[in-house]
């Protein structure tokens, strides 16, 4: 509770500062609007504009990308652990692809996948799959030897081995991979849209910022940034906490 109070205190003092600078008047209003304008813009965008829809589209698109990316990462991680040429290929792929920013791939992705939502999803998958893959692989590698022996002694089926032992056992690693993946997906989506500017029905928050920028709606732009910040805090503080509390913390698997 105290922590929240501190957060709120810092936010309020920052807003007061902002307003002071605004009143000081050293910046043109067009580039430095007042706090009230920003919050009015936020209210208007949510009630009359498209912001809530664009927020939902952003979250839905990221969910799709993260879902596909996570699934792909799990499959690749198991393949990676198989010794031999395929495993080596995946290892090479990871070291080549992981440091590559999705934005740099965008022109190529447009050539391959055309234009529209698909490209953004592919970019998010790229953003998510490599950190998750590395983490899941680490999780599988770090699985206690005894789990393998138990599975062997009790002649457990591959299905049981994968879903009831290997995956839950590497869950702490998966969750930290998911956190990195989420952060990267969130950036990729917004950056991708801001550069690429999908407008209209498939537009998300990045498109929103892009439109606010070209039509010079600075309060609207800042309102969008507030939404992005709030969303980041929400996901970090509530969503991931919830995931952890209902899994690894509940099981006493503190890493």
């Amino acid at each position, binding site marked *: 509770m105290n922590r929240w109070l501190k957060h709120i205190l*810092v936010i309020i*003092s*920052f807003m007061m*500062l*902002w307003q*002071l*600078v605004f009143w*000081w008047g*050293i*910046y*043109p*209003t*067009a*580039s430095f609007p007042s706090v009230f304008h920003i919050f009015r813009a936020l209210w208007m965008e949510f009630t009359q504009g498209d912001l809530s829809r664009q927020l939902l589209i952003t979250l839905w698109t990221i969910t799709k990308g993260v879902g596909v990316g996570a699934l792909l990462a799990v499959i690749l991680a198991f393949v990676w652990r198989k010794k031999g040429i395929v495993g080596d290929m995946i290892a090479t792929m990871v070291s080549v692809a992981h440091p590559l920013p999705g934005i740099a791939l965008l*022109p190529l992705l*447009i*050539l391959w996948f*055309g*234009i*529209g939502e698909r490209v953004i999803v592919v970019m998010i998958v790229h953003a998510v799959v490599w950190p998750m893959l590395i983490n899941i692989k680490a999780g599988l590698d770090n699985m206690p030897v005894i789990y393998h022996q138990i599975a062997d002694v009790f002649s457990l089926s591959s299905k049981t081995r994968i879903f009831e032992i290997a995956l839950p056992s590497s869950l702490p690693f998966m969750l930290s991979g998911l956190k990195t993946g989420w952060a990267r997906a969130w950036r990729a989506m917004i950056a991708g849209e801001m550069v*690429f*500017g*999908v*407008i*209209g*029905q498939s537009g998300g928050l990045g498109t929103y910022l*892009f*439109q606010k*920028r*070209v*039509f*010079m*709606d*600075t309060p609207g732009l800042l309102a969008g940034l507030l939404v992005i910040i709030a969303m980041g805090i929400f996901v970090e503080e509530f969503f991931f906490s919830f995931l952890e509390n209902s899994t690894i913390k509940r099981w006493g698997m503190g890493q």
Partner: protein
Amino acid sequence: MKAMVANNKILWLCLSLMVLAGGCTVGTQSHDDKELQIAEQFGLAYAPLVVIKEKSMMQDHGVQVEWIQLNNASAIREAMLSSHLDIGFMGIPPYLIGKDNDMGWEVFTGLTKAELALVSNNEDINALTDIERQDRIILPQPGSIQHILLAMAAEKEFGDAQYFDEQLLSMSHPDGLQALKNSKDPVLLFTAPPYVAMALQEPKFQKVLTGVDAFGGPFTFIVGVASETAWREKKSQIDIFQTVLREAILWMEQYPEDAADLLAPYYQITHQEMMNYLQSGELVYALDVQGMERFQEFMLQVGYIKKEEALR
């Protein structure tokens, strides 16, 4: 311990205040009275600027120029707002949007008139009415001259200026051309020379709409805009720039071969290709500004700008 936390907070507040206020001072102090900061964009429409730059024509008049490469009108607008830029070039609509948001900038010259066109990659799409709901229309960005021209045509055709707004896609001209060539689905591109001609080289590509049709007459594609501070503090430099620009355009007309020699390496094309562009008539470099009122009326009517007083 409590006291330390409080101290830290005060420190943070002071720091943030400094950061918030800091940008401004840096911005204004970097100005040098003798110097002019000009934004250039990449494209044939800006060729006279390249001539001025390559031939150091401003320096001959004793004015130092800092050329800044920016990609779009939004970036130019932002640079001007932060007092990092004196002169920029853009379409009339982005200029009007800035004006509508209380920017004190003013147009001081025209630069280019051009044959803009909406091109489809599908032989079945020859007119606006052939465009389906799911077909994507690529243009540089919303609020650009291409966007407003499309809105004008949509208003004429369907009585709804925002008819196509849900299917727009923002890309630079070269990226857009690539997308057009590589997409199997029907895609359209609203673009400018030389990309119009480059696109129409493809056998299946069709010209769907021209800028002149949409506007209902000729209009200036690119105008030169000077910031409020530049008007106030660098009036003489702006005057010199206008003279130099006229000289540059005249020189290009009188010595097209020399101009092509100068420009071809800059645009990384052959001398002959450059000559073709200069003489095709698709691009006309001219100092007068045409079509300002019509753009203002239309944008006000549709709501892309809101303030009556932007109309002068």
